[in-house]
């Protein structure tokens, strides 16, 4: 079969337009899962700035000028960070909702409506994300 022709993209993501609900759910779940892992490490890095802050003067702490507070305040004053936070919420909400869907799939419950539950996860994620925008963006401008 060494002569056989390799159809390349025909067999891979070149077909993305033809993916069905379950396939998209899988791709989004992988993607959001790894984004969350990435966030976890960034989060730990930011939190670690609290370690030197703990040994700073009481006066500095009281004035909110310790390294931890200044880092957080600096980050939160950036518009990109606010937008990224909305994105993080979207990613987390989708991962949780679709994660619940996958748990039902693992239990063999409602497999006939697996596509509908995926669409429901998407719509709910969208709604929650939109509703969160005022909270996240408040005071960023």
């Amino acid at each position, binding site marked *: 079969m060494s002569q*056989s022709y390799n159809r390349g993209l025909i067999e891979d993501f070149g077909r993305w337009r*033809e993916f069905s609900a379950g*396939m998209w759910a899988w791709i989004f779940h992988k993607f959001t899962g790894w984004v969350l892992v990435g966030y976890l490490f960034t989060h730990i890095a930011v939190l670690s700035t609290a370690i030197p802050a703990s040994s700073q003067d009481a006066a500095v702490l009281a004035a909110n000028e310790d390294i931890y507070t200044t880092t957080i305040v600096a980050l939160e004053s950036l518009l990109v960070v606010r937008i990224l936070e909305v994105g993080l919420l979207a990613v987390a909400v989708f991962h949780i909702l679709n994660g619940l869907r996958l748990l039902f799939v693992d239990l063999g419950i409602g*497999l006939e409506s697996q596509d509908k539950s995926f669409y429901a996860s998407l719509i709910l994620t969208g709604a929650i994300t939109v509703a969160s925008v005022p909270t996240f963006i408040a005071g960023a401008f």
Partner: protein
Amino acid sequence: MSTQPPQQEHEESPADSVDETESTPPAQQRREDAKADKRGRDAQRQAEDDAAAKRDEPTRHIKVFRYDPEIEGKQEPRFDDFHVPFTKGMTVLDALIYARDEYDPSLTFRHSCRQAVCGSDAFFVNGEQRLGCQTQLSDLNEPVRIEPLPHQEVVKDLVVDMDHFYEEMEAVDPYFDPDETPDGELAEQRQSRANREKIKMSTRCIWCGACFSSCNIAAGDNQYLGPAALNKAYRFAMDEREGEAKTQDRLETIEQEHGVWRCQTQFSCTNVCPKDIPLTEHIQELKREAVKKNLKFW
């Protein structure tokens, strides 16, 4: 002739061919001539049908994947266009048969039963694995793109190499294997109604390979048993007439590294199975059985 509707044209064709046989040169004439003649007629027919298509007569446009490593000029894959006269109830397979018989006898594809029983004509039609004989042309958008199954090696045109799929099927012992048989030589091995109902859908597999081709895990892991083989394993593991030992055996086969745990519940197989077998459901149930077998808290 070109002014007549395709249906009549089709009915007339036997008469045409009689004429042509009469005008064919004597038998000693080289076969090449006959072939060239046939090619000429094919081209003419194709041209007529193309013209019919332009005049809005009922034809359907199919685009068929062509590839043949042994023929120069076909080593680079391409799509061929055919305009096939449409008749009510026409399937993708009917269209291919028409294109082969009337336009291009080298067009190669497998088919046999034409009624979704033999499993030999699974193709990739408009981006989905389907049986040619079970898919109505009227349900598809034009042009209808017909390709060989993805993730299998193409031998020629729409023919793919099924060996790997069959190997995975064989790997799960796809046959009934009870520990003990009834005493009487001709005694039946009865099954309860409920048990029959449980495995009913899983018995319907026709080994077409559509599910295997649709599964992107099977594409990435050459050793993954795949949906059809796992469904086979389910069919026998759930059959109460097989003994405890054999059932345990089967569970060991499906819980190995390239077994059920590779399944990521993408539902691609379930979506394409022409026999509507709930493949993902069966694989998930096997996963739970495998867990129950290994975790014994009770």
